[in-house]
Structures are given as structure tokens and as C-alpha cells.
């Protein structure tokens, strides 16, 4: 058993890599003992979602057989998360957005199924729940963000998956699809409990698509559609927030801001804020609180109080130890939790793992770059592109001026590009490849700052 081999590896560090016997990957590309006497790095990646998968593939491509790359995940199902938004509207079938994780890991990468118990960074070892240990030379944490619906009083109580739903899980999205098909009218409330959440534009997209879907069904006029947010506007960044607030108004979606949800009463259909404001609903679509993976809290020094990995926002090196890195939704860096971010971080992560192993200073090249399509219904979409310092601005993408995609503006072309995105996700992003013409760093050329009033940032 492979587990035995790992469990026996009590010695750690680069020194032990020289002589560690490794199990042959399933591909048969390497044989046991082939690397005895050579330096072979042991890289363990926790999480086989988009971030972990693209990191594994990029590292495998860089090192070939000079590194052993092991990916640990609790299950074999890779969910294309951007697809969850479409399930409630019958725009995609649930089974179409799930594929086996192993199919997207390059030959020579090992996928270990198991639950992570904790990381002991001081000993450079990951402990799994089944008692085995995985020593590493470099650890990459890519375990994403988990939903924590039970942290909000009443949310998973009476009415859960009957009148209270979330589309952030596959089961939830399917249950909501059935409820939406049967919804004839009343108060439909779309709510996010608090930031941070994955894909912060998804709740807005849900509102836009719900407006379209209910019109198609001929029941829109019977529905009072409200978006409820703890933020002071539709979005976090001022220019995009003004634009999206206008779009909500155009589509007849009421906006309730600075509503910090304290509890949910599914029985009487009420959202209640911490300061005792109440909002009635017949159907609630909520985005629950998010946190990091449970093992982060059990791993000394690894995460913040929400379970996100403390790391440098430009190098992605974790604060807990120099041979630990993080990528994707698992980090605490102040940018969106989104697949595009994981993609843009990939280059920096792999370069810095290499630099660390070669004893070179790290590169602070990640700039917070995020890129999101926002579906607005009726076969149109917006595109936004931003980073730590530059908020979403109007312009053209990816080529300055030439585009062809318009930024921060509804267009059919953006919608068509979004339709191509699943293919890009499975075949380019997960493989750890670059998108032609789209650099990891945000490009300012071609973007314009509109004359703004009352800007605070």
C-alpha cells in the first residue's frame, strides 16, 4: 500500500528526499527506486479543485520526474462551480458540470483520497484522518472555501430546501431549480449573509437571470424580487457598484443595503438583521457564510479566524513557514474568491515554489488580478477586470481599444464568450496553460476612469 510507504517516512526535509523511495504513479511513468541518489522534491498539494489542479499540472510540467507531486482531496468529483448558477434555471444539467478529478491531472501526478486532519508546518508534515502522514518539501494549500450555513441561526432549520435555498452547492441548486419551476408569485429574496463569498457577482447574476426566467415563464409581474446585501451598494467597488445598481433598477429588482442578516425564520418566512430589521419572503435564495477548510483551524499558525490561510498577497507564501504556499479561495488575500484569480496566481505560485527550492528570493508578482463575466439575462453579459489597486473600469478586453470584449458594459459578445468558458475551464485553465493574449497581471491600457463624484477610494 502506498499509505504504508508514506507513513514510514518519518525523516523529513530535502535531505530525506534524496533517498526516499517513491511509489510508481499509476501511469507507470516512473518506477520504484528510480530516483534513489538524485534530488527529488516532494510537493504535496491539498485540494484538487481548480487551484490545486492547475498548480499540480504547472508544477509537474516544470519539474517532470524531478518532483513527486501528490494531490490530496476528500473525493473524486470536480464540480465546475461557475456552472452552478445555471442549474436553477434549467440552463445546464447537473451532471454536465461534474467530472472526475483524476482526468484533469497530468500523468505522473498522484491523487490521494483522504480527509486532512492537520498540517504541522514546523515538521513539514500533513496528517490525514486515517492516521497516515505525508511529509513534504513544499506544501501548497488549495482547499478552497467551505459553506457554513449552520453558522447563521435558523438557516438550516424549518424550510431549508423547501422555501430557503442556496445554489452554491449542487444539491441546493437542483432543489432550487424544482422550486423555481413551481413558483407562481410572491416575494423572492436573494440574500448574501456576509463577505467573503465565492464569486461575489453570482448573487447579482442570479437576480438578473431570475428576472429573465420569470418573464419567460410569464409570472414576473406576480413576483417582488429583492436583493439584500450587508454592503452599502450592489457591489464592493464604486464604479461597478453604481453601474450594477442601475442595472438592478432597470430590471425592477429592489435593493436593500446594509442589511446584516442575524437569523432566518423559515417557518414564518422572515429574514431578521442583527439590528432587528425584518424582511418577509416566500422564497429565499441565500449565500451562506464562507470559511476555510476545517483542518486550517486545527493547524497551528496556518490560518486567520475564518480559516483562510495567512499569506503574502504578492508572493502567496504562507506566514506559518517558508515552504508553505496557498492559492485560490483558500487564501486570505484581499481579492475575489474566483477561478480566474487562481488562474492568474498560478504563474506566481509555481515561480515562487521553484525559487524557494533553488534558494532564491521570491517574486512578488501577483497583483490581485480578477476577471469575471456577469450574466445579465436575455443573452447578454458584462465583463469586469480589476486588481488590488484598480477597480473595474470601462474599456476593452483583452486588447486595449481593439477588444473585442467591452468592459463594464452589457453585450451579446460577452455572453457568447461566457458560453465558451466551460471549454476554456476544462481544457486550458485546469491544465495550467496560459490564455493567449491574457497576461497574469492586469493591463491598464485601454481602460478609462469615468469622471466620478464622491469617490472615496
Amino acid at each position: 500500500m502506498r499509505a504504508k510507504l508514506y507513513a514510514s517516512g518519518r525523516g523529513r526535509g530535502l535531505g530525506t528526499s534524496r533517498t526516499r523511495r517513491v511509489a510508481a504513479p499509476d501511469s507507470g511513468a516512473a518506477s520504484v527506486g528510480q530516483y534513489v541518489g538524485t534530488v527529488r522534491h516532494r510537493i504535496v498539494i491539498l485540494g484538487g479543485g481548480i487551484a490545486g489542479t492547475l498548480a499540480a499540472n504547472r508544477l509537474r510540467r516544470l519539474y517532470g520526474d524531478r518532483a513527486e507531486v501528490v494531490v490530496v482531496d476528500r473525493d473524486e468529483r470536480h464540480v465546475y462551480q461557475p456552472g452552478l448558477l445555471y442549474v436553477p434555471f434549467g440552463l445546464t444539467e447537473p451532471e454536465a458540470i461534474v467530472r472526475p478529478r483524476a482526468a484533469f491531472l497530468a500523468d505522473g501526478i498522484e491523487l490521494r483520497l483522504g480527509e486532512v486532519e492537520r498540517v504541522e508546518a514546523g515538521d513539514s508534515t500533513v496528517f490525514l484522518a486515517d492516521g497516515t502522514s505525508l511529509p513534504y518539501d513544499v506544501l501548497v494549500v488549495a482547499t478552497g472555501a467551505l459553506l457554513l450555513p449552520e453558522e447563521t441561526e435558523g438557516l438550516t432549520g424549518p424550510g431549508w430546501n423547501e422555501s430557503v435555498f442556496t445554489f452554491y452547492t449542487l444539491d441546493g441548486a437542483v432543489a432550487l431549480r424544482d422550486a423555481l419551476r413551481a413558483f407562481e408569485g410572491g416575494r423572492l429574496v436573494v440574500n448574501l449573509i456576509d463577505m467573503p463569498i465565492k464569486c461575489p457577482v453570482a448573487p447579482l447574476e442570479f437576480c438578473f437571470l431570475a428576472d429573465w426566467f420569470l418573464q419567460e415563464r410569464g409570472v414576473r409581474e406576480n413576483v417582488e424580487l429583492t436583493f439584500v446585501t450587508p454592503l452599502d451598494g450592489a457591489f464592493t467597488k464604486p464604479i461597478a457598484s453604481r453601474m450594477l445598481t442601475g442595472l438592478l433598477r432597470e430590471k425592477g429588482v429592489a435593493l436593500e443595503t446594509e442589511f446584516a442578516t442575524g437569523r432566518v425564520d423559515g417557518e414564518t418566512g422572515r429574514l431578521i438583521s442583527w439590528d432587528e430589521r425584518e424582511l418577509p419572503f416566500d422564497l429565499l435564495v441565500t449565500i451562506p457564510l464562507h470559511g476555510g477548510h476545517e483542518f486550517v483551524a486545527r493547524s497551528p499558525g496556518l490560518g486567520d479566524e475564518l480559516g483562510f490561510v495567512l499569506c503574502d498577497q504578492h508572493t502567496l507564501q504562507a506566514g506559518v513557514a517558508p515552504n508553505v504556499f496557498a492559492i485560490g479561495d483558500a487564501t486570505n488575500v484581499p481579492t475575489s474568491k474566483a477561478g480566474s484569480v487562481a488562474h492568474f496566481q498560478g504563474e506566481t505560485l509555481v515561480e515562487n515554489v521553484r525559487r524557494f527550492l533553488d534558494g532564491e528570493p521570491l517574486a512578488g508578482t501577483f497583483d490581485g488580478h480578477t476577471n469575471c463575466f456577469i450574466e445579465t439575462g436575455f443573452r447578454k453579459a458584462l465583463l469586469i477586470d480589476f486588481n488590488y489597486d484598480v477597480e473595474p473600469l470601462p474599456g476593452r478586453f483583452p486588447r486595449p481599444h481593439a477588444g473585442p470584449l467591452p468592459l463594464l458594459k452589457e453585450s451579446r459578445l460577452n455572453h457568447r464568450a461566457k458560453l465558451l468558458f466551460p471549454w476554456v475551464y476544462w481544457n486550458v485553465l485546469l491544465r495550467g496553460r496560459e490564455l493567449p493574449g491574457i497576461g497574469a497581471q492586469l493591463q491598464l491600457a485601454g481602460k478609462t476612469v469615468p469622471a466620478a463624484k464622491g469617490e472615496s477610494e
Partner: protein
Amino acid sequence: MTTTTISGTTLEVDAEGFLLDAGQWNEQVAEAIARERGIERLTDRHWLVIHFMRKTFLETGSAPSIRTLGKASGVEVKELYQLFPKGPAKLAALIGGIPKPRGCI
């Protein structure tokens, strides 16, 4: 950028009244801002939160969110809303002389 005069000191603030330089803050400034926002007296519970906010900001460079306050400041979310009505994280940051919490992205 604008300036405001609080307890005899001229302070630089942004459009929403948040101090631009956390170093210009002191406890008299905090009490004056609190009174302007309808909090007559800052109790020990208020100060616990305000000092936690400042400590976190000075150490990490960003103001803690309401969830972080609820988990780590020693004051639960329910009480935070009683101490700092409407938006506790925002109001405590304002009184504590640090930038507005960005609520992440």
C-alpha cells in the same frame, strides 16, 4: 480629501469622515467622533472593540470585518450591534481612526 477639526486638532479625513492617518488619532478624538455619531459615552466594552480594531489594523494593514470582530474581539455580534448601531465594523473603524473596512471584494 477634506479636513475636520475635532477637539482643537485639525484632522485629514476622507469623504465619509474616516481618518486618513491613523497616527492622528487619540482617545479624545474617538470620544468626539462617537458623540457626533450619537454615542454619548464610550464604555469599557466600546473600548475593547476600538482597541481590537486598531491593533488588527496596525498589525495587518486592513480593518477587521464584523465576523472577525464577533469571533476574535471578545464581544459577540449581537452586542456589537447594540454598542455600535447600524454598522458596527464601520462605526468602530470610524471612531477608532482607521480606514473603512473594505468588506473584502
